[in-house]
């Protein structure tokens, strides 16, 4: 996966795998994920584990707090993979 559009699509795909009730059309990339999707800490960890596996990117726990939107995740993955 190369372009940030492709990364973004991958991020959303993994998010929907965790929260299948979400309508992709309702997601706003710059809004806080926690306000848009019902994710508890187990869901969040599973989501990041999926991103780690798909994009082969390491996400230290200390980074969790800065990854709050789809945009945050997309650019983090783009910079670190």
């Amino acid at each position, binding site marked *: 996966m190369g372009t940030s559009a492709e990364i973004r699509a991958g991020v959303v795909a993994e998010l929907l795998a965790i929260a299948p009730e979400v309508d992709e059309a309702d997601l706003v990339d710059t809004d806080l994920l926690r306000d848009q999707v019902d994710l508890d800490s187990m869901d969040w960890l599973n989501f990041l584990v999926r991103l780690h596996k798909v994009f082969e990117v390491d996400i*230290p*726990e200390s980074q969790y707090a800065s990854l709050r939107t789809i945009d945050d995740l997309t650019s983090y993955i783009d910079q670190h993979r």
Partner: protein
Amino acid sequence: MIEFAMPALGADMDEGMLNEWLVKPGDTVTRGQIVAVVETTKAAVEIECWHDGVVAELLVPVGQTVAVGTPLAILAEPGEKAETSAKPATTAVAGPAPEAAPVGHRLWVSPVARRTAASLGVDLKTVSGTGPQAAITLHDVEHAAATAHHEAPKAAPPPRQVATEPQSAAERARARGVAMRASIGAAMSRSKREIPHYYLSDEIILDTALAWLSEQNAGQPITERLLPAVLQLKAVALATQRFGEFNGFWRDDHFEPAPGTHVGVAISLRGGGLVAPAIHDVAEKQLPELMADLTDLVGRARAGSLRSSEMSDPTITVTNLGDKGVDSVFGVIYPQQVAIIGFGKPAQRVVVVDGGIRVATTVHSSLAADHRASDGARGALFLAEINRLLQQPHEL
């Protein structure tokens, strides 16, 4: 010959529909093997066999709804020649099935049916059961109670038909949601009706535990990291070892302590409802193993696939609503357990430590306990023990 009966699946599930047999006559089964799948209002439950043997006969066809305690299959003991004639069985094996119908007589009654009959004054001997082996279901008792006012009990209604008309996935999900609300309602109503709850709360400073956890996780790949929830589960399990009166069951007017610490974890389901299946032997497990168990359990609960032993034997429950943003949660005890521990959200709060004002990350813990089994003074010590254990995370 051994009768293998439908195990109890918790206080809010007294029947299920046999969805699938995973064994057939002639197959050898071992203790713990999954032999069937039963559909309940909350999940597809994989039914584990609790005896070694050879399947002689399957008694319940796929598609039939059966009450807890109903014989599902006849097993020949190892070495015994498998006969296929259904003789009156002498033993019923349902594993940890505390609520299974009593063995040794022909009257099979589901637990909820028995309770309802008692409260409605229905004589079970006059009720015609429509379940397999003429087991009496809740439906039969209610039917008998409704007709008892104006006539003598009459012939049994026709056996319940399994809905065969095609349903869309959305309709099935909706029907399941309605059924799950009814199950939760029945269990929680019973809890509030029968269990004299008392409630205590404590505030736990988490700085030490969270710092220790960060340090642990920093050196680990994301797949091996621990959540604070596993520290809480382990602390609760260890605390019950010193405060056994909170780990077990209230049955037949007395407390039965449980030998193991099988901690039920309240798991909310997407789309509504919850389940509280057990992680087994929490006190004996290391944190990484507990984390793996918790991840697996949450995943399977949300996918709607659980095992009968997980449903039937939690000895105490932990509910954590911290991720939903509440400060504290006071639980409703799951019958026949005697305690539920609640955790709210960890947050920075102003606390007084050693006479000085400090900002610390704290969490509010709570205990709801059955006053028949314990008193507040012991409950307070139990909560304090959980607090003490969470101050020493390296020992968890």
